[in-house]
């Protein structure tokens, strides 16, 4: 039942104190005064509580169980982070408060910025972008500004491998670039010949996810870096998969000029049903002046905001970014520290390889061999044999109480799962997942219809997404 159907005219769920101010007549032109009451819920407090409590019960989440979405790094979200982010001193401050009254917040941001620079090997960083894709846009705008500042106006192209996240080409386009997609080599990595062919004086930037979405490390990264830089272009690091490299190497060390991070992936901030995340962007020295405004500086013992950066790409969103998310990431980095961060990388890679090994007998690995934090499996053979698709297996997984991996991505593999366990999952959880997957493959062979019609044990059965988009219903249809 929707909240609109629970609504009853005249019921209330609010109370407000009196402010002791007499009612003013509206001094607004009559035609600008609202006539019709919006059809919003009229419900009691109990109604609200039960409605959202029951909705929450219909959600799978990391707190409920394994959530192996590839490239999403659905690690455990520590509760101390939540506690810290909801301290009054953080939630109740206004972005325009006098600077001397928000020194704690600025200090936190300044320190976070420096910690992230250290972790990425970059020279400066902006916390303003609100999400990963937003960080990408910011980063590519910086690349654009860089070339323009040098008068290098013909660089209108961005190279993106075909294994890249969909946001990469989209962000490049939003930054005004034409996108050149290059094919991966047979080993799932960038084909250096392809890259060579694509690189020229019109190329502004190569966007790379490393490890890439197949979970493979671009082992020629130093070569790639040299090729890109020799061509006068910049090298961009999509930080979605940084988790794998923690404690081992840094984008800056590999030659990247620009990097965006996802605080909601590597740094454990919750995914919030789709956001808010946070997508800080770090750059090497030669690009610092192009970072968004304002920058946070520390001067004479005080933290300040500097808007005076004439070559900056400008503001990429209002104010300073998703501050509450920064508090969570800050808490996390303080909690993990140098030793903890190193342990994360190791265990994330260990988990992925262990699970890969368990699964390869069931669902072949697209690019066999050692992987990083994730790997891609395909059920193409099973699909041919039984008609059971990756989608069906995904739905059947839900019946067994685990979330499905990322499906049908990257596009260069078919009927595939992209599986990222993260370091916070135990061996037992991985064993259990492999066992379930095996069970489903057996079901698919013995009784394909069973799997094709899954799920059964979920709040709703399989939903019709085709009609949903063909004859879209965008909002509740009120009666009358």
């Amino acid at each position, binding site marked *: 039942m929707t909240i609109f159907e629970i609504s009853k005219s005249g019921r209330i769920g609010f109370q407000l104190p009196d402010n002791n101010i007499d009612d003013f007549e509206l001094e607004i032109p009559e035609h600008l005064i609202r006539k019709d009451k919006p059809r919003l819920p009229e419900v009691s407090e109990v109604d609200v509580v039960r409605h959202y409590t029951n909705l929450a019960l219909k959600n799978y989440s990391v707190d409920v169980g394994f959530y192996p979405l590839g490239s999403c790094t659905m690690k455990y979200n520590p509760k101390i982070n939540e506690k810290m982010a909801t301290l009054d001193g953080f939630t109740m401050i206004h972005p325009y408060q006098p600077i001397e009254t928000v020194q704690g917040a600025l200090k936190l941001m300044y320190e976070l910025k420096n910690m992230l620079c250290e972790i990425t090997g970059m020279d400066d960083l902006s916390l303003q972008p609100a999400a990963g894709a937003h960080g990408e846009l910011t980063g590519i705008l910086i690349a654009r500004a860089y070339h323009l500042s040098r008068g290098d106006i013909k660089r209108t192209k961005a190279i993106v491998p075909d294994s890249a996240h969909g946001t990469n080409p989209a962000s490049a386009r939003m930054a005004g670039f034409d996108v050149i997609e290059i094919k991966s080599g047979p080993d799932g990595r960038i084909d250096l010949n392809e890259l060579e062919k694509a690189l020229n004086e019109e190329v502004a930037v190569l966007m790379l996810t490393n490890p890439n979405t197949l979970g493979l490390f671009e082992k020629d990264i130093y070569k790639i870096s040299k090729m890109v830089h020799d061509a006068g272009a910049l090298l961009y690091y999509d930080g979605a998969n940084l988790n794998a490299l923690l404690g081992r190497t840094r984008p800056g060390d590999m030659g990247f000029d620009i990097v965006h991070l996802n605080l909601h992936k590597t740094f454990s901030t919750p995914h919030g049903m789709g956001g808010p995340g946070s997508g800080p962007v770090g750059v090497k020295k030669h690009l610092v002046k192009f970072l968004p405004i304002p920058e946070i500086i520390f001067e004479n013992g005080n933290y300040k905001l500097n808007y005076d950066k004439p070559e900056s790409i400008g503001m990429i969103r209002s104010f300073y970014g998703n501050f509450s998310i920064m508090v969570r990431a800050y808490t996390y980095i303080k909690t993990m520290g140098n030793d903890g961060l190193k342990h994360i990388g190791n265990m994330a890679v260990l988990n992925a390889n262990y699970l890969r090994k368990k699964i390869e007998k069931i669902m072949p690995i697209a690019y066999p061999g050692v992987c990083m934090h994730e790997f891609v499996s395909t059920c193409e053979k099973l699909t041919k044999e039984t008609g059971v698709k990756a989608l069906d297996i995904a739905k059947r997984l839900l019946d067994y109480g685990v979330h499905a991996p990322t499906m049908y991505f990257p596009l260069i593999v078919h009927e595939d799962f992209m599986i990222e366990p993260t370091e916070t999952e135990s*061996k037992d959880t991985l064993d259990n997942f492999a066992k379930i997957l095996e069970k489903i493959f057996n079901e698919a062979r013995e009784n394909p219809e069973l799997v094709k019609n899954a799920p059964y044990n979920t709040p709703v059965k399989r939903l019709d*997404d085709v009609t949903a988009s063909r004859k879209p219903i965008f909002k509740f249809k009120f009666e009358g």
Partner: protein
Amino acid sequence: MHKYIPHTEKEIEEMLKEIGVSTIEDLYVNVPKTIENYKLENGKDEFTVKKEIVKLSKQNKVFELENIFIGAGIYYHYIPTIVETLSNKQNFVTAYTPYQAEVSQGTLQALFEYQTMMCELTGMEVANSSMYDGATALAEAILMAVRINGKRKILISSAINPEYLSVSETYCKPQNVHLEKIKWSETGTIDLEELKNKIDDETSAVVVGYPNFFGIIEDLKMIKELLPEKILFIVVSEPISLSILEAPGKFGADIVVGEGQALGVTPNFGGPGIGFFTTREKYVRKMPGRIIGETKDVEGKKGYIMILQTREQHIRRGKATSNICSNHALMALVNAIYISTMGPEGLKKVAKMSYNASHYLARKLEEKGYKKVFDGPFFNEFLFDAGEDYISKWHKLTEEGILGPLPLEIVLPQFKNNALACCTEVNTKESIENLLKYF
């Protein structure tokens, strides 16, 4: 061994054996080892971390609600306790994008209801399930207008929130979309004459605030009347005001965007808030962002699912309507819970009390000789001439526990000694009288 990482030594051994390698190092084939240690402290326990961070939080000054007279895009309102209780449910917080709809009905239904609520408030036909903030929502609205009619000139009111203007510039520049600012009139509304003169064949859209950055209520009817059919009408609105002000949809707005923070989200030092984004159904395939639709399951039971994903980056890649992926869904949930709790009567009361309080303050200031800068109708914010060196007074007011009206020169240097005052339902007669003592 770490409490967030469950592996025991024994398990690590077993796992390495299963993989067929002897050490963790063997897993890093061809990965250069460029660091041994980060120049960071080692990890600390949660109690120590908590202590440090609580200390940081106390280095920020939290004002009593009633003594806060600042708005300018981020607003203080009463937030019912249940908004926090319910939106903090970890089954919401720790879920991700509802890729698996069957186990994400909580997310999906909440967002579907949120979309409905935003349509009701704005008088529009479709809403997406969130943008990052009001500023990026406007920027995306402008780019959407350009996609719709192919024109690249935007006539935008100079009285739009300057942060929104700035962000829109950042977004528009690389796509060669030109923002042409229209000045404000003496009443603080857009200069209709200039607007009229600047409309031409290259114009894609006209953008106004409602209320605008100075709190002034633009006359959407008159503006719309100036616009040829093909020019899109983009309205940047403030959702609390929409319980008093006629819905922009009623005036023929094509896209209505804005910042939803006022609807139950704490100020959070400016973020996360939430951008809302509504438009007409005919434009939906040009709209950025995620949309949740109603559908049925195989047994005919009602359910919700992400729809029209072919607009989005993960399907369309470079040809998507936007690059947005992670959005601000959790804040959309907060909005929905807040709106559900307040209901139409509660929202209207909030709007009216805000109106009353700000008009009371304005009148009292005028009685004391502080003149309003603009005399157009305003909702709950107004600009006034605060006298010599107001900026110093503003800093001093914080020592009295008052977060006074914003010295606008901080944001717009031309408004020297002008202050943008804001009242909402949290300001009482008493607290206003107290503020007035310093004027």
